[in-house]
């Protein structure tokens, strides 16, 4: 019997519990500017669909699945912009804004092939198992594991902060 019982958890609690993680994932995949658009689109779509979510669903995997689609939308919209917009300033501002994070890390992440970048973000930031990531990105579990491993290996050499 399908577990389609009504959800009794207020959506506010979903935002509080998973919002920060989904933001980290969006930032890792898209950079800090586009990340906020993707986060907003993700949670608005999630709010709309929330009453129909099965009670036993993995909420975090569900949110990352939506975020993955929204990130693709945001990337396509960015590609259509007539003038290229720099995602990261040459010299990252250091004005104390908490969302100001390491430009070198973004550059290193941004240089990865998309499949590696998403696999790294979904596994290491969202904590999703590779089988779950394979579902989201439409590849095999082994391919997802390999993409994450390859991505991490590259990051350790291209991101100065990553070397011990």
């Amino acid at each position, binding site marked *: 019997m399908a577990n389609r019982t009504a959800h009794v*958890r*207020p959506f*506010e609690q979903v935002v509080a519990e998973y919002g920060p993680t989904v933001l*980290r994932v969006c930032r890792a995949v898209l950079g800090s500017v586009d990340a906020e658009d993707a986060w907003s689109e993700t949670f*608005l779509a999630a*709010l709309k669909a929330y009453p129909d979510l099965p009670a036993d669903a993995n909420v975090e995997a569900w949110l990352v699945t939506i975020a993955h689609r929204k990130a693709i939308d945001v990337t396509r919209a960015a590609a259509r912009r007539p003038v290229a917009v720099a995602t990261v300033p040459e010299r990252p501002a250091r004005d104390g804004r908490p969302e100001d994070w390491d430009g070198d*890390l973004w550059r290193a992440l941004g240089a990865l092939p998309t499949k590696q970048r998403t696999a790294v973000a979904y596994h*290491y930031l969202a904590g999703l198992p590779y089988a779950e990531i394979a579902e989201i990105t439409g590849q095999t579990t082994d391919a997802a594991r390999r993409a994450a491993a390859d991505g991490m290996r590259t990051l350790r050499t291209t*991101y100065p*902060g990553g070397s011990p």
Partner: protein
Amino acid sequence: MTGGLFDALPSVDEEANIRLHARLAAAAERDGVLDVAYRTVDSPVGELLLAATGEGLVRVAYDTQGMDEVLAALAASVSPRILRAPGRLDPVSRQLDEYFTGHRTTFDLPLDLRLATGFRKAVLAHLPHIAYGRTESYAEVAMAAGSPKAVRAVGTACARNPLPLVLPCHRVVKSDGSFGEYAGGADVKRILLTMEASA
């Protein structure tokens, strides 16, 4: 495992969370999918939870009733599309302020009474007719609601009043003149009736 690789990404970015939450609430309101908006306010009788649907105020609850339980009950009985979104509750919060400072004796707000049905709804409908500073007995309210013998049911209807303060169940007292029970606690009932009597 990641060797601190992602330490540069703040795990919790409170400023961004607040900004994004406000943006989400505004977008949800715009798209008509914010089924229940809520906020909390401070008052002389403790923290209050206020919740409204698109139709109107649907729930007022005292801190002592358990905010999480009240929100979970709203999720189950109204909709789980619930967000903390103060804007929709601004008129309620303003009128409550005016009430507590003695500048308001009746509330003028759209109400959503979907949480009460049948006889309980008839009792709630009568409550606004008990004027500020006055009281009625449970028996008098039973009579006014059309069931003179349903005195205990009036007590239940008051105890489960989804909109205490705004629908003034605190003005319903025992026939011997003692205050009796109250959803927000007997002390709160005494404070409210004393405040209204001295205004």
